[in-house]
């Protein structure tokens, strides 16, 4: 009965152990995002509290606690310079929970810690929504609910607690799904969302020629593309990202704040209408096929260089539709400012300058110059490599005349430098090339490993023309993924994954599931909700209809739940009509006068009722007499059924309040 009170004080109680487990699980969800010292410190605190802490060592002074909390806040602020960001907030939350462990004694403290763990699940959801992480979130939620069960019922074992929590969550899931589908979403945010303070791997505003190799060993998806109508041939699958103009000899950079309007173009060839679903990249760039005609979204700027630059970084999956062209012609000549910027050269690289001069002298037109430059790459004995030799200070000279091996970034950088040296405006374009066709989902998957860099050169009539020097050095790159050419770029497990047909098939299935998850769940918004209502048969649905549907489902669920609960202990229903009517009569009297003890017969009970409330006797006594007559008297089969019905009706009509009023009223008239 009081076994839990007698438990040894030395061992941490089950409630605290489970609260710690829930907190640890929540911490692990964020382990790779939070500062290592915060994670390690909290884990150490959990271990200390569970193993060696004695009750006497726990903190009790409010001042000490407040000071500790303040110093933790300071620490977090010093690290992040804000407390508002997701990572900073999560770090602070985790540290405060660790502090709470220092003084956790009672069940209430355990509840607080589990609450923090649940909030960590939410923070993890805000941070990342990949399908692969969903099971982790589910397990953590289960752990938290089981911890609740163990705090409330200390004697419950671990397995029963998990089973109980799992069953409750399963029962809750259909309702959760209905609420999720029907709760009307806001069209915008309630308050400004603080910017993220961390970056992931991906293309950015600058590039060192060797830097792209860092990306290609990453097998993560960047975006998925569905073509509506015509699909471009594989050698045209250039996905434009940041366009880089400024070169200091080592690094290429974007033009600062290029807010100019994109120059008008004449579009040639097939328009490619496609839908791109971006994975969160934390960057401002949206990716589309070669030359997008216009911006897909009011919040996205189509820059002078035909990049798509969003106002907010991509922190959650986004999807958009856009029309692109792979062949264009300039409608206007290049402005002098742009020409100046795109022919600027860094100091150094004397041999490249010499080569450029000789190329220019031997050719008459810009087209011929371009061809000669590409010819130099084709015949110069250049090779394609992910792990080229390190280049010296004159990087372009070093590549073109000494090492002669490099990656797409090296060739694009060297070729643009060569063209600029020869007086041709040119710049580097970074982005992705190709992609893997997923037959299950019917889309093209572009991974980080498809990262690429190429050049654009201004030719007098055509305007900006895409030139891929890498395609000259390694022509097969256009048709096959980079990883087919350079399998050593990948880590061993991923290489094995690609080599096994069965595994890569599985991977494609998984990716199709991820794509479905992102499209149907993560990007589920008001439009999807209204579409759902329309499919359910609501004509011209709006947010108000959603609200009604939401309320309807919620109340229906509650009603069914209440009904099912009552079902388990339904009043044992008397078998025949007479007994039912009698039970009803007894219930009425039990409420108003006194309950009938099970052993008391009808006439005794009637006597007891009349003794307690003489004013009711006149109405109640005859009913009991009739019952006794019907139940125990001589049977009269001919009229019995009607008599029972009459009795039941009389019981139904009996109103004790009215009877009492009637009795007192008549009493007054008599007096």
């Amino acid at each position, binding site marked *: 009965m009081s076994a839990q009170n007698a438990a040894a004080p030395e061992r941490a109680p089950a409630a605290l152990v489970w609260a710690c487990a829930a907190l640890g699980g929540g911490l692990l969800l964020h382990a790779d995002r939070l500062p290592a010292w915060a994670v390690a410190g909290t884990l150490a605190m959990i271990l200390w509290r569970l193993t060696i802490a004695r009750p006497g060592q726990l903190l009790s002074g409010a001042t000490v606690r407040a000071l500790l909390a303040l110093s933790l806040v300071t620490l977090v602020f010093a690290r992040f310079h804000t407390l508002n960001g997701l990572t900073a907030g999560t770090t602070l939350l985790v540290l405060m929970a660790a502090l709470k462990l220092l003084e956790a004694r009672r069940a209430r403290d355990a509840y607080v810690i589990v609450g923090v763990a649940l909030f960590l699940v939410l923070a993890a959801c805000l941070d990342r929504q990949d399908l692969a992480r969903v099971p982790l979130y589910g397990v953590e939620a289960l752990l938290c*609910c089981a911890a609740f069960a163990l705090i409330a019922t200390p004697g419950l074992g671990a397995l029963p607690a998990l089973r109980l929590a799992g069953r409750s969550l399963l029962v809750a899931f259909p309702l959760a799904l209905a609420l999720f589908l029907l709760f009307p979403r806001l069209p915008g945010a309630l308050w400004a969302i603080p910017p993220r303070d961390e970056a992931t791997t991906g293309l950015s505003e600058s590039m060192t020629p060797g830097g792209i190799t860092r990306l290609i060993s990453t097998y993560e998806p960047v975006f998925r593309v569905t073509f509506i109508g015509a699909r471009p041939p594989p050698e045209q699958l250039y996905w434009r990202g940041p366009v880089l103009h400024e070169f200091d000899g080592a690094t290429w950079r974007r033009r600062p704040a290029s807010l100019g309007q994109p120059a008008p173009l004449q579009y040639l060839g097939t328009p490619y209408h496609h839908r791109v679903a971006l994975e969160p990249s934390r960057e401002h760039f949206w990716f589309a096929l070669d030359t997008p005609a216009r911006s897909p979204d009011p919040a996205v700027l189509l820059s002078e260089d035909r990049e798509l630059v969003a106002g907010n970084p991509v922190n959650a999956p986004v999807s958009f539709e856009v029309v692109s062209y792979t062949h264009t012609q300039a409608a206007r000549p290049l402005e002098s400012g742009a020409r100046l910027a795109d022919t600027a050269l860094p100091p150094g690289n004397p041999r490249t300058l010499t080569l450029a001069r000789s190329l220019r002298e031997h050719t008459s037109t810009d087209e011929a110059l371009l061809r000669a430059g590409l010819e130099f790459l084709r015949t110069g004995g250049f090779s394609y490599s992910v792990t080229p030799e390190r280049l010296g200070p004159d990087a372009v000279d070093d590549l073109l005349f000494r090492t002669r091996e490099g990656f797409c970034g090296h060739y694009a950088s060297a070729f643009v430098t060569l063209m600029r040296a020869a007086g041709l405006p040119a710049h580097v374009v970074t982005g992705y090339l190709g992609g893997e066709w997923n037959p299950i989902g019917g889309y093209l998957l572009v991974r980080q490993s498809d990262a690429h860099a190429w050049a654009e050169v201004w030719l007098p009539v055509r305007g900006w023309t895409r030139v891929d020097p890498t395609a000259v050095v390694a022509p097969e790159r256009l048709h096959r993924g980079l990883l087919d050419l350079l399998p050593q770029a990948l880590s061993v497990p991923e290489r094995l994954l690609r080599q096994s047909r069965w595994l890569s098939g599985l991977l494609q299935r998984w990716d199709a599931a991820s794509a479905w998850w992102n499209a149907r769940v993560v990007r589920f918004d008001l439009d999807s909700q209204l579409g759902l209502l329309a499919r359910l048969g609501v004509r011209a649905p709006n947010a108000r209809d959603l609200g009604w549907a939401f309320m309807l489902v919620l109340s229906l669920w509650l009603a069914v739940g209440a009904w099912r609960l009552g079902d388990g202990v339904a009043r044992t229903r008397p078998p025949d009509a007479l007994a039912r009517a009698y039970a009803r009569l007894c219930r009425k009297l039990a409420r108003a006068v006194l309950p009938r003890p099970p052993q008391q017969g009808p006439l005794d009970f009637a006597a007891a009722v009349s003794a307690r409330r003489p004013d009711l006797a006149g109405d109640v006594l005859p009913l009991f007499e009739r019952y006794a007559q019907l139940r125990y008297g001589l049977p009269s089969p001919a009229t019995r059924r009607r008599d029972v019905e009459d009795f039941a009706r009389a019981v139904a009509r009996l109103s004790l309040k009215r009877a009492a009023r009637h009795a007192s009223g008549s009493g007054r008239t008599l007096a």
Partner: protein
Amino acid sequence: MNPFAPLARRLRTRSAAWMRRRQGEDVLPVTLERRRLYILPTRAGVGFATLLALMFLAGLNYANSLALLVTFLLTAFALVAMQQCHGNLLGTQVLSATAPAVFAGTTGRVLLTLGAADARPRLQLEAALPQGPPQHGDLGPRGRQRLELPLPATARGLVRIERIRLATVHPFGLFRAWTWVHTPLEMLVYPRVHGSLPMPIHSAPRAGQRSLCGAGDDEWVGLRAFRDGDSPRQVDWKAYARESPLLVKDYSSGGAELRLFEYARLTDPDGEARLSQLARWVVDAEARGERYGLVLPGTRIAIDRGPEHRHRCLAALALFGQSDGADRVGAERRRA
């Protein structure tokens, strides 16, 4: 210290009266049905609701579907928890509640037997008297559980127990379902046993004693629990075969003295001290197997012995001078 304490107390009294009016008096056994169960979130539950509200705002603001899905899952979980908590108490039966008589100055107890008629297990039920600490117990499928609720007996007389609270926070501690069982229950508190005066001997003629005493050594008094050293010949084997505990047929050994304890003969000015002394004598005389009677102003209990007689004497002492004393004891005995 808490400025709302008087308000809360008044609210509690009012709600207790309201529940009493609403539910009426209970006749055991009672099955707890929906109409009489109350449920509210606990402090942890209120905290959980606040957490849900925060999560909901965050999910809505970030327009983050997964966060909203998690929030709704936990909301639905809380609703399920509410139904489970309600269901944990629903259908529980209160089979019996008794409060055996005790002496003043000790702690008495209310013995409560809970049961379940259906196949659902019920965990972590708690029962408490209005001011007492809760006692916890589990009920298996169709199981029974006996709980002892402590009830301090400070002064002699009748302790009336208005109601018994049954509650549960199982399974997740987010909600608390409770009900009050209003069953007439009284605990008789005998006077404190105290005093050191020698026992008086009844001054009646010896002959009368003979006739009263009858068969002397061989007179059968009753059954009592087996004690080490009892002769196996005296054990009531037939009763034992009927699954009773081991009982011994008690024969009067002496009946040497006839004693009459009279209130009026005591000289202590404090009435309570006199009653304590009388109680001491009654207990001692019964323990020695002697025959005794009791004379109080207005009450006379003839010479006799046995547990029933002892109770009658102690009850008379307990209720002596209290307004509704005598008829209550009578009613109690009729019930027994």
